[in-house]
């Protein structure tokens, strides 16, 4: 939250409740009555906003753009007496809420059910307003607003996040607390998550393996839906977004209800429909780049004083066209595409999607029960995920079938105890994780990933000691992971069975100190590991986009990561906020692709690449400046850099995002009681050319990374009040200069430019049906 609340302001449109002066900022701190130590985690429900906030490590949370009026805070924290506090707001101010440790009785403690998800580590949060302001974008695209996050893509429709230079299986997505298992091993596999469902998106930068499990050596993205409504009656929200560039429409609706006669019971249903056609790059249409997405979800919760239960189901379904010209037959085709000054495949606008295309569906069922006890809050979460991925290749003769039909079923179980604070100073959690996974394809499919089963188990303990203005956190985890693989081999493709067993400890140590009211700093050491994935062990296939053959390596060992991160935040004269973080990460046995012998096929010679391991080091920094000139004018500048090195060869690593700088200015004002929170914003982003490439780059890739580029975005919007009904409208112009550019981290850089100007109109309509 702390980086973001200002950093995101250009993307932010605030939902508004009343038509008054709504420009106040409240910093609320929840502290223990006697020793004033911050209470973390605690959840604060604010009326009449009907919103929940979670305190950070300093026990605080910030409410932005608050209107004058009376607010009631309901504070819940495990081990503390619940507290209700009322505050009259007539200006921006900090405010402390004191709560007391409960006696050794359970009276009056309401279990929040909102288990603290985050650890003491650099993180940035995007709130609902930021998500709504970017509605219709894919998750990966949306996250670009976070400093230190870039993207890896296949054009405009397949976009995945890159955190501090790492992506795919090196970062983890938690969707509603469940680790997302959606076959994200390839760079053309975008996360199967509907951002409309999210209330907050938190990005934890850097290794966070202890709390979240193996693989998260680059970072974690937490996608959290809103807590179920506790206010009797119906409420809802409608979102609409229209995109000019690809004539895409996105509609999303949500309805939630709490039963007046049974206040413990609440439910919510939500759905999204999104369809777009070919997108436009400067001067041309991009052939076969349409998208269609249908998603829905439902949640039901039962919440009593000391216990509760929740079930959640979500379905994600997407059909994605892939630019026709990116499917190349051999090296010569690729070279022709690279050397052509215009797209090789002519196209007009259409919503139709032909081959090559993908169809992916993802189902998630989650069940959660929780119970408060003398020692703390017990939580058990079971998750089942069914991911089904179909790839339709370009065929000589249409047969209506997909050439790849991959299923990944995952079951996860987590048992966690958030224990009550010991002596008011030591808080923490302990738990166990289990995962069972099945991956298989259909008979006669093109080989991509062999059939495998996997079982994993882990135990962890994270404790935090707090004293005066500092806190220290330590965590330990032990993981065990088993794979059984049926790999087709040889000329006859006979199935050969392999099994692999990996186990490893990991640990973390963090320190955080509030030196002054306006200055804090922290340092974190984290260790994490990642087992090689099936594609790295066994892949043996042609990548049509890059016209190259990638060959797996069965002797790969797990990657080990050790990272050190230091961050500080300083506020000058209550106007200028500086956030800076630097990190250094060693990854031993970093898995990468090394060029091998050329392979003769019926389509000529192909470059081959073998999976190898080396020792890598990533160093980088994220810096942001936010300046609030007055209550109308906000400015920001932020930038990030990452330097990835192969320590063994003393060479740069390939496919590392280049440096980037973003800056923006936003003017906001209230025009009349019925037209509030109006804003106009200009945002610029410059992405530098990646010049840190290995000396052997030309042997493995062509052409060199594309030139740097500048993008300009404009946006304007506000809240209109039609009677009691607020309506939020915004209009954005993305890539306003219609810049012609390619990005090093985009696979389509060989073939076509990135999309040109895109005009986006967004409407957000909160609905309230409470009986008065």
């Amino acid at each position, binding site marked *: 939250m702390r980086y973001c609340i200002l950093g995101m302001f250009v993307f932010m449109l605030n939902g508004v409740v009343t038509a008054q002066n709504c420009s106040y900022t409240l910093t609320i701190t929840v502290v223990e009555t006697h020793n004033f130590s911050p209470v973390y985690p605690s959840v604060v429900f604010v009326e009449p906003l009907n919103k929940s906030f979670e305190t950070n490590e300093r026990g605080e949370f910030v409410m932005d753009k608050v209107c004058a009026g009376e607010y009631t805070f309901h504070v819940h924290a495990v081990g503390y007496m619940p507290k209700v506090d009322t505050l009259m707001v007539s200006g921006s101010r900090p405010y402390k809420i004191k709560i007391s440790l409960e006696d050794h009785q359970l009276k009056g403690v309401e279990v929040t059910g909102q288990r603290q998800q985050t650890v003491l580590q650099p993180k940035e949060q995007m709130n609902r307003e930021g998500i709504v302001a970017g509605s219709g974008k894919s998750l990966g695209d949306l996250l670009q607003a976070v400093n230190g996050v870039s993207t890896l893509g296949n054009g405009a429709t397949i976009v995945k996040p890159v955190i501090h230079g790492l992506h795919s299986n090196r970062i983890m997505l938690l969707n509603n607390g469940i680790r997302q298992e959606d076959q994200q091993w390839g760079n053309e596999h975008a996360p199967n998550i509907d951002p409309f469902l999210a209330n907050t998106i938190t990005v934890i930068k850097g290794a966070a393996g202890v709390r979240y499990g193996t693989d998260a050596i680059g970072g974690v993205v937490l996608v959290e839906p809103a807590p179920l409504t506790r206010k009797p009656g119906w409420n809802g929200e409608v979102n609409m977004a229209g995109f000019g560039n690809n004539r895409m429409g996105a509609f999303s609706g949500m309805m939630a209800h709490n039963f007046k006669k049974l206040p413990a019971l609440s439910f919510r249903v939500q759905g999204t429909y999104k369809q777009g056609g070919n997108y436009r790059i400067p001067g041309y249409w991009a052939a076969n780049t349409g998208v269609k997405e249908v998603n829905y979800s439902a949640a039901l919760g039962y919440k009593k004083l000391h216990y509760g239960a929740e079930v959640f189901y979500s379905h994600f379904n997407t059909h994605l066209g892939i630019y026709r010209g990116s499917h190349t*037959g051999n090296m010569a*085709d690729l070279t022709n595409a690279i050397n052509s000054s215009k797209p090789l495949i002519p196209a007009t606008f259409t919503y139709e999607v032909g081959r090559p295309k993908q169809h992916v569906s993802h189902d998630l069922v989650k069940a959660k029960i929780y119970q408060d006890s003398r020692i703390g809050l017990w939580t058990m979460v079971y998750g*089942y995920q069914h991911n089904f991925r179909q790839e339709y290749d370009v065929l000589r003769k249409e047969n209506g079938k997909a050439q790849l039909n991959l299923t990944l*079923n995952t079951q996860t179980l987590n048992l966690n105890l958030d224990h009550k604070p010991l002596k008011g100073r030591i808080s923490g959690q302990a738990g166990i994780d289990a995962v069972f996974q099945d991956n298989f*394809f259909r008979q006669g499919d093109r080989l991509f990933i062999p059939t495998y*089963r996997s079982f994993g188990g882990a135990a962890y303990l994270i404790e935090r000691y707090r004293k005066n203005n500092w806190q220290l956190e330590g965590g330990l985890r032990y993981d065990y992971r088993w794979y059984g693989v049926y790999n087709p081999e040889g000329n006859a493709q006979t199935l050969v069975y392999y099994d692999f067993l990996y186990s490893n400890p990991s640990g973390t140590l963090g320190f955080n100190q509030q030196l002054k009211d306006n200055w804090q700093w922290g340092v974190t050491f984290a260790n994490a590991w990642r087992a090689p994935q099936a594609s790295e062990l066994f892949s043996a296939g042609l990548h049509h986009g890059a016209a190259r053959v990638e060959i797996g390596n069965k002797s790969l060992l797990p990657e080990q990561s050790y990272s050190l991160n230091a961050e500080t935040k300083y506020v000058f004269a209550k106007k200028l906020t500086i956030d800076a973080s630097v990190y250094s990460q060693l990854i031993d046995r970093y898995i990468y692709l090394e060029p091998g012998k050329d392979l003769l096929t019926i389509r000529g010679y*192909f470059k081959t690449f073998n999976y190898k391991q080396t020792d890598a080091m990533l160093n980088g920094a994220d810096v942001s400046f936010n300046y609030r000139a007055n209550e109308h004018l906000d400015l920001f500048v932020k930038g990030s850099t990452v330097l990835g090195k192969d320590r063994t060869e003393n060479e740069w690593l390939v496919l590392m995002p280049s440096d980037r700088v973003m800056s923006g200015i936003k003017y906001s004002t209230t025009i009349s009681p019925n037209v509030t929170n109006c804003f106009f914003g200009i945002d610029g982003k410059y992405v530098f050319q990646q010049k840190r490439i290995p000396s052997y780059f030309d042997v493995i890739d062509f052409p060199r990374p594309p030139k740097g580029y500048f993008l300009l975005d404009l946006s304007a919007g506000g809240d209109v009040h039609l009677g009691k009904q607020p309506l939020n409208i915004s209009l954005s112009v993305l890539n306003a200069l219609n810049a012609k550019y390619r990005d090093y981290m985009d696979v389509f850089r060989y073939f076509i430019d990135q999309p040109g100007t895109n005009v986006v109109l967004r409407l957000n309509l909160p609905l309230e049906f409470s009986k008065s």
Partner: protein
Amino acid sequence: MKKNTTVLLFALSAIAISIDACKKPEPAEPAEQELITTMKLIVTDGSSSQTFTYKVENGLGSTTGGSTQIDTIKLAPNKTYSVTTELYNEKENPAENITLEIIEERNDHLLLYNSTPASGAGSISFTNGSKDKDGNPFNQTISFTTGNAGSGSLQVNLMHEPTNKAGTTPAASGGETDAEVIYPVRIQ
């Protein structure tokens, strides 16, 4: 009542999915899609016929190579031959004749022949290529006219969905290369 229905639906879907999850996956066998292993040029001079084979059995899906056979095209100088090009998947048993499928889909396919050197000793020139349904080049049958004695090479490409059927090189025709073979040529 409504909530009970919802609970029931959740329970049912959970059960249905658990049952699905309990099915043991039978390890399936993959297959390389639309594999071409072999190109054959059947060259006749009116009286006798020769077949020149270019075979790379290595499917792109497997890491092990199968057998490779690359014949040298040996023809007499300054003579015209009629040629039929055929394509096979010899990993199937019996071998699958892909030529038939390509003839059926001839509007989406194009065969290209390029000789090095393009003229003079050791060269081959090309005329009378067959047409597709719209009268555009397809070249599944074609005439070869040899130059003076010498040696060179012949590149044959099978292009899929070419953007310009009048093109005579892969770069000019566009489309995706389904096969690209290079025969050594000796004219003697």
